[in-house]
């Protein structure tokens, strides 16, 4: 198990947290956006081997993509990239894509607020 992109981004443009430790799976995604592209993606995961693999895969798939392309990453495409997941681990793949999307939504809403503040 050698996951890529483990960590946090101090001045992240967007942060997305999903899941909860009670269920045994929790992921936090951090993104840095440049020119509508995900310049950097980092994550932290509390969960099983599949959860760690999924979040690592999502971070790899999302890096360098445009916002739109990253939002199009689905649980299904993640599972495919991993070469399939056992049925009882499907929920782990759901979490990965959801956490990424939440981070992007966080970025978009912040951007919207900044644009509002500027535009008045």
């Amino acid at each position: 198990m050698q996951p890529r992109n483990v960590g946090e981004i101090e001045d992240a443009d967007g942060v997305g947290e999903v899941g909860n430790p009670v269920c045994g799976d929790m992921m936090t995604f951090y993104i840095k956006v440049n020119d509508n592209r995900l310049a950097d993606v980092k994550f932290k995961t509390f969960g099983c081997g599949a959860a760690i693999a999924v979040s690592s895969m999502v971070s790899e798939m999302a890096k360098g993509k445009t916002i739109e392309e990253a939002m199009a990453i689905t649980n299904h495409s993640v599972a495919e990239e991993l070469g399939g997941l056992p049925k009882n681990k499907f929920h782990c793949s759901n979490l990965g894509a959801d956490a990424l999307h939440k981070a992007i939504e966080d970025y978009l809403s912040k951007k919207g607020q900044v644009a509002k503040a500027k535009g008045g």
Partner: protein
Amino acid sequence: MRKVYLDHSATMPLDPRILEAMLPYLRDIFGNPSSLHDWGEAPRQALEVARVQVARLIGAQPQEMIFTGSATEANNFAIKGLALAQQDKGKHILVSAVEHFSVLNAARTMGKLGFEVSQLPVDKHGLVYPEEVKRRLRQDTILVSVMHANAEIGTIEPIAEIAKVVKETGAIFHTDAAATAGAIPLNVAELGVDALTLAANQFYGPKGVGALWLRRGVRIMPLLDGGIQEGGRRAGTENMAAIVGLGKAAELAQQEMSARQEHLMPLRDRLIQGVASRIEHSYLTGHPTGRLPGHASFCIEFIEGEAMLMLLDARGIAASSGSSCTSRALKASHVLTAIGLPPELAQGSLVFTLGQSNSREDIDYVLEELPPVVERLRQMSPLFAKFVKAQKGGK
């Protein structure tokens, strides 16, 4: 790479002496013990030798032993068979909250068939209190089942004290001793129970064979109907090789029990102390002293059990866990829930069960490899990151 097996509660390796004892029954001595001709003679005798060997292990009479295909079968037989046989006296069944699924689910099935099942709570160590049993016993309670020890947290239950309380009523008292028979000395008269479950693969015997001990005079409805094997109580041509293996395993366990305990306990304690001193935010689950001789179970905070098992497996170490992800049903351990652990801490469950093949070098190897595994998973964990930030913020 060093390979260290520390999952003995899942199953144990077959002792070579037991394999030797079993082989003839897989080769030339193939007869059916029920056969009237000469081919049945040797198996018939071997069956009764095994019966005596197992009975001796638990201080019982040979004719009170019923061979089964597993501890799960023995538990199903006990719960269903005893309840059905006593149902004219009442329909209330008491089981502890930390029983093995074979007891809990069998009881649940009886609940669907018109019986009423109540659960006995446990304290933070997993102990059932006799007073709690007394409080819940009713006029119509016909069956109580409390395990002798729990394989997930290692706690040994006060069966004799509970039996005293149960004896004040007419209820039957069954104990699942799969984790204790062959591991610690036990005597059915001293325990005061009416029925007891055991399994061969928990004391170096083969898989696929266990036994239900049933005190003479206690009525039970058979689970398996058919031929008249086991005194008409458990039909089916006997698994001779496995039963011979069970008998031999019982004999060896009885002879070597003190030596085995003396071997296991220092290793267990070394592991427990080692984890406590090397891994911060780790907690021992189960009773600190009243626990199985080879059992070391922990909860490691901020990380998840299955991920630990995977990383340990990559380092040649086999262990177990009660986390949700390690259960196919994705439910957190009912045992850890029953002892009141916060759910996120229960997810960090890590269980080591030692055996005769383990050495001090094995334990030291684990103590070397586990801290970096924990460290690595904590580096990945948002829970740990939050904890660290909160600590810094506090200062």
